[in-house]
């Protein structure tokens, strides 16, 4: 998506600089700095309520941050015209923490909807692609059900399939495996790893799932609600073994005595 002349292969797909997040006078996080590179599987972790969901909404330009800069593939994700925002979002797939499926459409129609809006595929082709995405997340049998008729974990997986519908360059998942059993959760990890190798898709994944973090994450950003800032950034194993911060070490190694 070379939408900007300044884009080079080294341009990080997401570049966050000195970000401050706040709701009114209440600061949620500040001094957030990180880059995500193309093809990376980048996890964001941290305690509940530390601002993970808010952070990804800043990245896709749904909420403006209190201060700081964000670039997505070289495009400004803080100040933009509606048209620029459309172009940015065209290459980003998002699955929300609550699923956010369109309740009046079947699961399959939900997945086909981005294809209908943004491609010239005909109905038959869309359906085949949609069904394929659904079977990737193990949901093919539920294709014709309405969101109201499936379980919480199935909703999550349907949202993941919808986020992948357009083969976005950047995929953002907000807690994709919350509510999934360990087997479906590791299937999802396998899918993420495969897609990142096959299509060099970049993944930003908000998750507390240590198992997923250690099996597929290239790097991890850890946020702490108490200190209101980032407290660790790097490959998860490295952070667990040798982070200078004891909170980070115990976060990643909850079994060990403090």
């Amino acid at each position, binding site marked *: 998506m070379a939408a900007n002349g300044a884009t080079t292969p080294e341009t990080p797909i997401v570049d966050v600089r000195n970000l401050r997040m706040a709701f009114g006078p209440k600061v949620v996080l500040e001094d957030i700095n990180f880059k995500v590179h193309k093809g990376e599987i980048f996890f964001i972790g941290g305690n509940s309520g530390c601002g993970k969901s808010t952070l990804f909404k800043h990245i896709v330009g749904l909420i403006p941050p209190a201060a700081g800069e964000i670039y997505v593939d070289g495009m400004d994700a803080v100040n933009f015209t509606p048209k620029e925002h459309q172009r940015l979002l065209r290459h980003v797939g998002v699955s929300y923490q609550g699923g956010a499926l369109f309740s009046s459409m079947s699961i399959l129609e939900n997945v086909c909807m981005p294809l209908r809006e943004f491609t010239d595929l005909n109905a038959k082709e869309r359906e085949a692609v949609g069904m394929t995405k659904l*079977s990737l997340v193990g949901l093919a049998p539920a294709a014709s059900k309405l969101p*109201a008729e499936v379980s919480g974990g199935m909703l999550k997986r349907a949202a993941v399939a919808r986020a992948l519908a357009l083969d976005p360059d950047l995929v953002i998942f907000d807690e994709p495996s919350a509510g999934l059993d360990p087997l479906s959760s590791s299937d999802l990890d396998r899918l993420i790893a495969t897609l990142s190798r*096959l299509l060099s898709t970049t993944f930003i994944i908000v998750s507390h799932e240590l198992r997923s973090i250690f099996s597929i994450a290239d790097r991890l950003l850890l946020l702490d609600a108490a200190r209101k800032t980032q407290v660790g950034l790097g490959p998860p194993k490295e952070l667990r073994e040798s982070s200078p911060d004891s909170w980070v070490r115990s976060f990643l190694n909850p079994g060990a005595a403090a």
Partner: protein
Amino acid sequence: MAETLRISQGEAGGVTIAISGPLDLETAPGVWDQAVRAATTATKELVLDLTGLGVCDGVGVGLLAELDRSAPGQTRLDGGSDELHELLKMARLEKGQDTRAPSVGFFSSVGQATAALLATIHALISFTGDVTAAIIPAIRTLNGTRLREILRNCVRVGADAVPVVSFLGLLIGYILSVQATKALETVGTTSLVPMVVGFSTFREFGALIAAIILAGRSGSAFAAELGTMKVTEEMDAYRTLGLNPIVVLVIPRILAGVIVTPLLTIYSIVLAIVGGSIPLLTKGYSFGAYIDSVFNSVVTADFAQAMVKGLVFGLLVAMLGCFHGMRTGRGADAVGASTTKAVVAGIVAVLIADSIVSTIFYNLGY
């Protein structure tokens, strides 16, 4: 552009589809139908030769998976990256998995609609039963919280409706008076206008104005609130705490409707009478004389009729609002649907009840 697809028919139901170059959003639609048609003839074995395959995106994977699905026999992959194999393995469907809902014909949709109507009537009867059965527990568990809930609903249903009821009352009274003046002018009896205004506002319009505003404002709000609570599982949370939602949520709302609608009825009668004076004042009548002749023309029974109607309408609208709220399905559009139903059902029920009550009063000689 280089050829993307090469199809060779082997003997006895073997088909080989060789794909070269990229298979993606650009190229896949061009070869889609041809490839799928070939795959369906592979009764024994479909070989997908991917040795020459370039970039393959989600649409390409979708086509490959569709070929696999369409082939009646086995599918074998030749070449292609490990990742692609992995992905196709994950994307493999069990053959014959149901994917789409069957479409519904005209007669069965008529049948379904009838069945749905009967189910609604049945549910309404059992809801009425639930509410009646919950009255005693509601009285027994009456406490500060519950009283505050009733009061809060009274304020929302009543006090907040005052501006719009005032406006509507004035307008209806005014319109009534203008039309009556016109009609009675032709027979030279404009002095009867106050009687027409008093008679019709007391017996009909006061309660109707209140009920229609109630349906539009509060019946819909009840349905939306209770419906949203159902969608977000708040209703289940009440139940698991051992609280009956009918007692905690429905009865306070119905009570508010029953208490407030008669009051709103009186209020709108007053405003309609005031509104009715306007055309006459411009014709030189005095306000005092107008009010005198209005009240000379109505009797206590007319007032009683207004109160009975207010009570019944309030009960009906609030009940139907809560009923549709409690019957909400899941999902955001379910709430919208219940809200609409609550308003429409409320207004229809009010008019049916109106004709019944009017007939009863008439037959009693009033």
